[in-house]
């Protein structure tokens, strides 16, 4: 199954120039291990695109390719029509100013408080007066519900709060594309729901494009417009979350239903169990 992504949730064809991120026939290896073997994905303007897959399938690596932190061995990764791997350092920085990224662990600057963390991109890229910086920072912190935590240090925040501060920092420069790397990892159900709602609200309210990398099927199904399921270095299924849930492909069913048995083996390759146990006794 590979439902064509040239159709959106309603089945209507998307305009050709609508792609914000486009990866075509991407090949990439790390230490001789093939991560991508002809990967094709697209993220379209104004939509929430989810990249899902079991651990180790290269979801975070895909983000590294999209943001220019790594280059593919072959194939093409384009952002707003620009080939990312061909950009100079200056052009890459200009491209990244159009993006905001939320890291797995928040990646807050540990020697700055919440306010300064959110103000950091503004201070680095603009010469705005302090009064305006303050207004912008407080507005973004208010949007994530943490205006009252402005003077706390990162060490004083819970995991969910740190993620929300990082989100406020990611949107403070009003990016066109927001990238979320495993935004739900290690969060309690309440924080998870909060982050989930924020992703949806920010995408709709700011009219931006969102890419979410995660393996939390339930949360992603609630907010994603388009989904890609990665496995074995390729896209094994794509479409709306509802379409993925209906799929009868074994790999998709195993992942979407969280089954231990399936194409993705539970056991790491090992010699025969009984033989292995008996060897220890001899």
């Amino acid at each position, binding site marked *: 199954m590979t439902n064509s992504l040239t159709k959106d949730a309603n089945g209507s064809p998307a305009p050709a120039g609508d792609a914000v991120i486009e990866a075509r026939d991407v090949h990439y290896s790390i230490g001789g291990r093939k991560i991508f073997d002809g990967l094709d994905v697209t993220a379209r303007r104004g939509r929430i695109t989810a990249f899902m897959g079991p651990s180790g399938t290269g979801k975070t690596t895909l983000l590294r390719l999209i*943001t220019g*932190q790594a280059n593919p061995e072959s194939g093409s990764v384009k952002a707003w029509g620009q080939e990312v791997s061909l950009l100079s350092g200056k052009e890459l*920085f*200009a491209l*990244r*100013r159009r*993006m905001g*990224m939320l*890291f*797995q*662990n928040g*990646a*807050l*600057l*540990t020697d700055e408080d919440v306010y300064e963390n959110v103000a*950091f*991109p503004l201070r*680095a*890229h603009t010469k705005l007066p302090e009064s305006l910086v303050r207004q912008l920072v407080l507005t973004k912190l208010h949007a994530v519900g943490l205006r009252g935590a402005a003077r706390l240090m990162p060490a004083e925040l819970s995991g969910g709060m740190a993620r929300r501060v990082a989100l406020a*920092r990611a949107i403070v*420069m009003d990016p066109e594309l927001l990238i979320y790397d495993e935004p739900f990892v290690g969060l309690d159900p309440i924080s998870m729901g909060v982050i989930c709602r924020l992703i949806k609200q920010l995408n709709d309210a700011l009219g931006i494009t969102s890419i979410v990398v995660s393996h939390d099927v339930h949360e992603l199904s609630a907010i994603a417009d388009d989904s890609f399921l990665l496995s074995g270095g390729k896209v094994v299924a794509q479409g709306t979350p509802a379409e993925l849930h209906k799929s009868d492909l074994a790999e998709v069913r195993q992942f979407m239903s969280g089954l231990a048995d399936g194409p993705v083996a539970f056991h790491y390759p090992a010699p025969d169990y009984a033989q292995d146990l008996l060897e220890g006794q001899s």
Partner: protein
Amino acid sequence: MSANAESLAVGWVRKVGGMTLFFLQVCSRIVPSFTRPGLIVRQIYNAGARSLVIVMLSGLFVGMVLGLLGFDTLQRFGSEDSLGVLAALGMLKVLGPVLTALLFAGRAGTSLTSEIGLMKSTDQLTAMQMMAVDPLRHVIAPRFLGGIIAMPLLAATFSVIGLFGAQLIGVQQMGVDVGAFWSQTQNAVDLRDVYEGIVKSLVFGVACSLIAVYEGYNSEPTPEGVGLATTRTVVTSSVMVLLLNYLLTAAFLTK
């Protein structure tokens, strides 16, 4: 040459090359980093002011030992009045810059390496790059510069306190004439000796700061990797300081 020795040599050459390139990259960011002087001032405080107590205490004790041993040796030749000269020249030319650099490597150097290593392992440096902020300019250059500025100031403090320690023992305890102590010191020490100490501490400041930020920036982003990088900072800095001290001393003597 065995394969092991060959790979060691290749690894060493690669590391020296990597460090040289890193040094040039950092140097090219020094002027731009002055656009935010607050960052540099904070690093001078971190590397300098926070090392002040340990440097002053060490200087005092080294000076006191120098006073004791110097007096014991000089009195055998009846020239204990020259204790001030011995202490001043020893402190200014060798002990001040070298011991301060070793203390700097152990206190500020390890702190720099572990701080940068932890920033790397918690994705803070990557996050900066994703915000289109150059971590070499924002994180590394201010720390490098802060170390270079702090080192001569710390070495001067060490030498002054050390001289005071030698005077404390020589004059107050051993009975060396206070007038002879200071006047002989004033006559024997000229500006060239002070200049030698300043040059040495500046060179040691560059070496120790560079090694500290390089090891932190290139550490493996794991707890073990950061620990190993911190150890490498102390070992490499200490050896480099002693080697450079020999080379600089020889250079100043042949001048």
